[in-house]
């Protein structure tokens, strides 16, 4: 029989048994819909985790002085004085993939306001720091480049510091605090950021011009680190390479010499998180696939019954010239048609469910085209796989017995 005729015959058989066909499809419909919805949830949460890491500054690149080997003794990184303001300038001027950059010095100390005091860390930076760390101001304003030049004694403080040194709730902006006995005028309060991924309180900070911190608190002329942000997350690895090249030139390192600095990006962290959500997605899809499998078994079941029920028809078709292959194809195509139709309905339902989840449950979702393609392909394969056995059985019937079957 020609394929077109086979399709017509199969289509007719499905239409003649609408209700049964629909119930058979139900397993496939639910299976496909749940695969699509689960993948959408997985993709969605992956995207949202990525976004929240981005908010933390996923494109941040940090340059730290590395352990220098002197006379065979490897020194501690924090004691290193090899990262200089000139290094910062070189990176700032030469690196093309960085959008913001700040020199950074930091030191611990006591924040004091009258009778309240709190141990914290002061970070000396330039005004670009806020952009790099993606921090907003809750109150007040950032210091200016002029204030950096002048090594002004101004500071911004994080929420944890506010709570501890201004427990009575007064607005800290405009107030004076002391850090290690150096008076600072509070000119701004940072928006609350909470803990970072490593459990470190990001609100327990004092931010001041790096010049001020260098001269008045630490009394150093080198930098503890340089912090920069790549123009985009994707460019981060490339930017890291750029920075390394600049730094090696800057430090006049020969090819056989090790880096005496280190450059890190947040990329690695992101891939860790991505693999976690990927794992979760795989798990969800595995569960959904089971329903697809059960749907396939449903098809096999119904096709098996259908073959039994239509034994006489099969006998007739054979008597009037249907070959085994014709009969096989007829039932196989019917099974495939059922599973593909079920698959289509499943895609529609899955997309609907995704919209529902997004709209009413406010879960982040993202429908990936590949999820539709894959579940659809699985559907067709399911049809062939589970349709084969009953179809084979139909084709193997003896026409004489089939004709006499009651």
């Amino acid at each position, binding site marked *: 029989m020609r394929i077109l*005729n086979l399709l017509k015959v199969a289509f007719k058989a499905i239409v003649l048994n609408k209700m049964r066909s629909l119930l058979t499809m139900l397993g496939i419909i639910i299976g496909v819909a749940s695969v699509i919805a689960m993948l959408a949830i997985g993709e969605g949460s992956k995207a949202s985790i990525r976004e929240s890491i981005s908010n933390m500054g996923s494109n941040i690149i940090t340059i730290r002085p590395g352990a220098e080997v002197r006379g065979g003794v490897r020194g501690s990184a924090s004691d290193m004085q090899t990262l200089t303001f000139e290094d910062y300038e070189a990176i700032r001027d030469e690196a093309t993939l960085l959008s913001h950059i700040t020199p950074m010095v930091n030191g611990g100390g006591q924040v004091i306001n009258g009778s309240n005091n709190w141990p914290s860390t002061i970070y000396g930076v330039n005004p670009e720091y806020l952009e790099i760390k993606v921090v907003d101001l809750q109150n007040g304003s950032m210091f200016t480049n002029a204030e950096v030049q002048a090594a002004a004694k101004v500071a911004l403080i994080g929420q944890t510091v506010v709570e501890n040194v201004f427990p009575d709730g007064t607005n800290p902006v405009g107030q004076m605090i002391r850090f290690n006995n150096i008076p600072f005028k509070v000119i701004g309060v940072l928006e609350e950021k909470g803990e970072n991924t490593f459990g470190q309180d990001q609100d327990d900070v004092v931010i001041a011009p790096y010049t001020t911190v260098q001269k008045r608190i630490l009394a150093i002329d080198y930098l503890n680190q340089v912090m920069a942000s790549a123009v985009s997350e994707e460019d981060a690895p490339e930017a890291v390479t750029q920075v390394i090249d600049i730094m090696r030139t800057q430090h006049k390192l020969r090819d056989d010499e090790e880096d005496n600095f280190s450059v890190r990006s947040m990329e690695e962290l992101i891939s860790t998180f991505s693999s976690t959500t990927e794992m979760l997605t795989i798990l969800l899809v595995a569960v959904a696939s089971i329903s697809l499998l059960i749907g396939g078994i449903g098809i096999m079941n119904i096709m098996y019954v259908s073959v039994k029920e239509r034994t006489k028809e099969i006998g007739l078709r054979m008597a009037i010239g249907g070959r085994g292959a014709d009969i096989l194809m007829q039932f196989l195509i019917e099974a495939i048609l059922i599973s593909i139709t079920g698959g289509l309905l499943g895609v529609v339902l899955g997309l609907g469910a995704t919209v529902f989840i997004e709209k009413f449950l406010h879960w982040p979702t993202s429908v990936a085209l590949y999820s539709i393609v894959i579940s659809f392909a699985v559907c067709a394969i399911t049809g062939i796989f589970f349709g084969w056995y009953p179809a084979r059985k139909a084709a193997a019937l003896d026409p004489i017995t089939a*004709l006499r079957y009651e």
Partner: protein
Amino acid sequence: MSKEIIKINELKRSFTMGTETVHALKGISFTINKGEFVTIMGSSGSGKSTLLNILGCLDQPSSGSYEIDGVSIKDLSKNQLANIRNEKIGFIFQSYNLLPRTTAIENVELPLLYNRKVNSTERKSRAIKALKMVGLGDRLHHTPSQLSGGQQQRVAIARSLVNDPVMILADEATGNLDTRTSYEIMSLFQELNRKGITITFVTHEPDIASFSNRTIVLKDGNIIKDYFNTNILSAEKELAALPIEDH
């Protein structure tokens, strides 16, 4: 001499049932020529069904030869047998075997679906022609449930004609019908036979045989009688003679 449609020689068919071997046909020979209307008679167990299966190329003989339209079916593969059935034989069954919820046209088209040489336009026109031939030109789009038993059997006859077979093979074709309707059907068979169609009619009802021009009687796997009717009854006349029923 007219063309030989069926040529059977020393045909035997035995079945193994457990440890026992049943000889259903014990070496029969006969020839059916083109244009004959043959009735094969016999009580149950006579080997009549076995012969029907072999004549219909649904089964193969254990020994002996069977030729249909000059083709020996010995050693033919399953697919080749299917092709023979499709092109040379028109089956008619006792229980009509129409596809339910399928129109008369589609039922009649069915054998042509398995014939790759026929396209859909030709299929349709041939189905309509066959249905007109059996007097159902006004019932083309009726489904079996909308047709009476006699009409359903007419659809089945149309289906058997649509492939232009060399022989129509009817298996108790009037068995499910009342006397009046079976006479109507027999009259149709006689009419088709007058047009030159070879018919082999398997039955156990003796009065059906009187409408055919030759009768072969089987008993216990052997042919006990094979004779030409000298007095062929006209089903049309018999029908007219039946007492008129109230409808």
